[in-house]
């Protein structure tokens, strides 16, 4: 009875609207939702169109191959990849602890670890300065004992980017770990596997889609990082001037046309990565597949 009822309703819905939701295949999209969604979509598309419209296409190659631009691009890629690697190395264990270990104040710790995501990046940069700067809380000892200085260095850029971008990885991976069916880990333990072996062979493969998605988001955030970088690491061509900084300076200074080309390159790289990874990784991660698809066949035989 309910079956025919649902089928009828679906048919009515199909008759009403041409636009259909993906889930269930039959839900009609309400008019106001569609209109507002269209506005939002346009809102995101317009800036890209604006750039394309004003781009100095005839000189594009010259601007792209200018030494300042290639240096900034190379530095951006180098730093953002390092920031992503560090975020994975430290962020996955952090996510695991936040997801699996119960301890007092866990909520506060989680908030603290993701604070830099919502903080104005400039504030983050200032805070980093007081922590790791030459006179900073920890930085003074780094300088005094090891002669190691972070501010205004390429390493400083990597630190600033990691600080701002790692929360994206932590949040994504923690959600995946929470959705994971922990019984597979128990099964592994009963087979004689240590917790560490279980983590590597069972847990990590199961959260891989979320891990990749988180890493991509982290990388995209690091690539676009501006505020914390300029505050903490400054703006020195070749050592700390990343693409976003180069774009900003060109726009403010002598060469707004170059800024547009560089901005388009940044957009293009990010867009390509997001599109190409979406179906393979992000789709799997956001479709609720982390637990079920990730952890396995459990549902089949249950």
């Amino acid at each position, binding site marked *: 009875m309910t079956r025919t009822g649902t089928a009828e309703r679906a048919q009515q819905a199909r008759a009403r609207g041409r636009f259909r939701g993906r889930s269930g295949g039959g839900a009609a999209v309400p008019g106001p939702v569609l209109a507002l969604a269209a506005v939002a979509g346009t809102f995101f598309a317009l800036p890209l169109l604006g750039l394309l419209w004003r781009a100095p296409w005839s000189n594009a190659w010259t601007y792209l191959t200018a030494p300042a631009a290639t240096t900034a691009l190379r530095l951006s890629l180098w730093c953002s990849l390092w920031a992503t690697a560090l975020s994975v190395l430290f962020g996955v264990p952090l996510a695991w602890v936040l997801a699996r270990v119960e301890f007092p104040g866990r909520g506060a710790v989680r908030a603290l670890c993701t604070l830099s995501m919502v903080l104005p990046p400039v504030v983050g940069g200032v805070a980093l300065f007081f922590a790791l700067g030459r006179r900073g809380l920890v930085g003074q000892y780094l300088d005094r004992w090891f002669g190691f200085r972070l501010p205004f260095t390429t390493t400083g850029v990597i630190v600033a980017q990691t600080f701002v971008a790692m929360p994206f990885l932590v949040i994504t991976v923690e959600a995946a770990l929470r959705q994971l069916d922990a019984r597979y880990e128990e*099964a592994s333990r*009963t*087979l004689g596997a240590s917790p560490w072996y279980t983590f590597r062979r069972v847990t990590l493969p199961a959260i891989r889609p979320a891990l990749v998605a988180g890493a991509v988001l982290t990388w995209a955030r690091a690539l676009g990082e501006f505020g914390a970088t300029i505050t903490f690491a400054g703006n020195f061509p070749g050592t700390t001037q990343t693409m976003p900084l180069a774009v900003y300076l060109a726009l403010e200074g002598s060469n707004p046309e170059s800024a547009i080309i560089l901005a388009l390159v940044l957009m293009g790289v990010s867009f390509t990565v997001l599109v190409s990874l979406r179906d393979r990784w992000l789709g799997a991660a956001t479709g609720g597949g982390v637990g079920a698809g990730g952890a396995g066949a459990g549902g089949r*035989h*249950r």
Partner: protein
Amino acid sequence: MRSPRAGLDAHLQLRLGDLDLDLELAVAPGELVALLGPNGAGKTTVLRCLAGLAPLDGGRITVDGAVLDDPSAGVLVGPEQRPVGFVFQSYLLFDRMSVTENVAYGLRARGRPKAEARRQAGTWLDRLGLAELAERRPTSLSGGQAQRVALARALATDPRLLLLDEPLAALDAGTRTTVRRDLHHHLASFEGMRLLVTHDPLDAFALADRVVIMEDGRAVQAGTLAEVTARPRSRYVADLVGVNLVSGQVEGGELRTPGGVRVVVADADPGPSYALIRPHSIVLARAGGDGPGAATSVRNQWPGTIIGVERLGDRVRVALDGPLPLTAEITVAALEALELRPGDPVLAAAKATEIEVYPA
């Protein structure tokens, strides 16, 4: 102090949500024990305690004299260090690995070289008739095949104690009989201790040497299935066997229930007892009519109301409510002759000599 004793010797005490587990359990080497009980009795928790997935609050677990869990002594051996294999209810095969990799997993986890682990896994797959599935993914297996892979995976680690949680529950009725027979065959070839959890008496009957009946975290009865079903000691077992079980106090040739109903019994010793009344030894009469009443030799007569009628072939099971809730079994002909319907008041009668009484 205590002489090392072969086999599993456990006293499990654990509070977990609504469950208050307190169970003593022993499995001798080579023995297959089935833990039988209704859902929520705590059967799976028993297995989890033995595997080390649920640490005890109190009590003690020893396998062949080695202590695995003893909270009072501060001993707790992790699951990966116990000589215990676990076949989970939904098998929990790793679906990113092939069948061979699943079976080799335990050996790899113990640091055996890959080639050796795969070779040993292959031996187990041969033994369980899974050789042609070696490179398949678990998602492409049938339920019965997945179960055998799970069994091979657990056995490959060479456990002393094998735990099986509802090994047949995930299967559809059609394949269950075949898989049960196969499982019996494979379990028989494993020499260690085996503990099987099930809520299906058929599984227990087909597979186990001995059953432990468990209700609300306690063992209510233990023995061979024949012993247990011949003299039920709980409502659960009585329902499984399909008999009426009345508990009460025997005094002067009568068993008196806590509700005050009297059951006349023959040859019973005084004291707390159970009376077992088989449904086919109950006679029904319309209330108010000429029943098996006063003029007969039948000593027991209880009033009741019909609350259910269930046909089983040419016989009918009639459920009665009243001071003594009973199930009677009569012929279809008798039901029709008496024109009995749900809601009708009746008298149920049973000869004292047909009621079996045994001490509680």
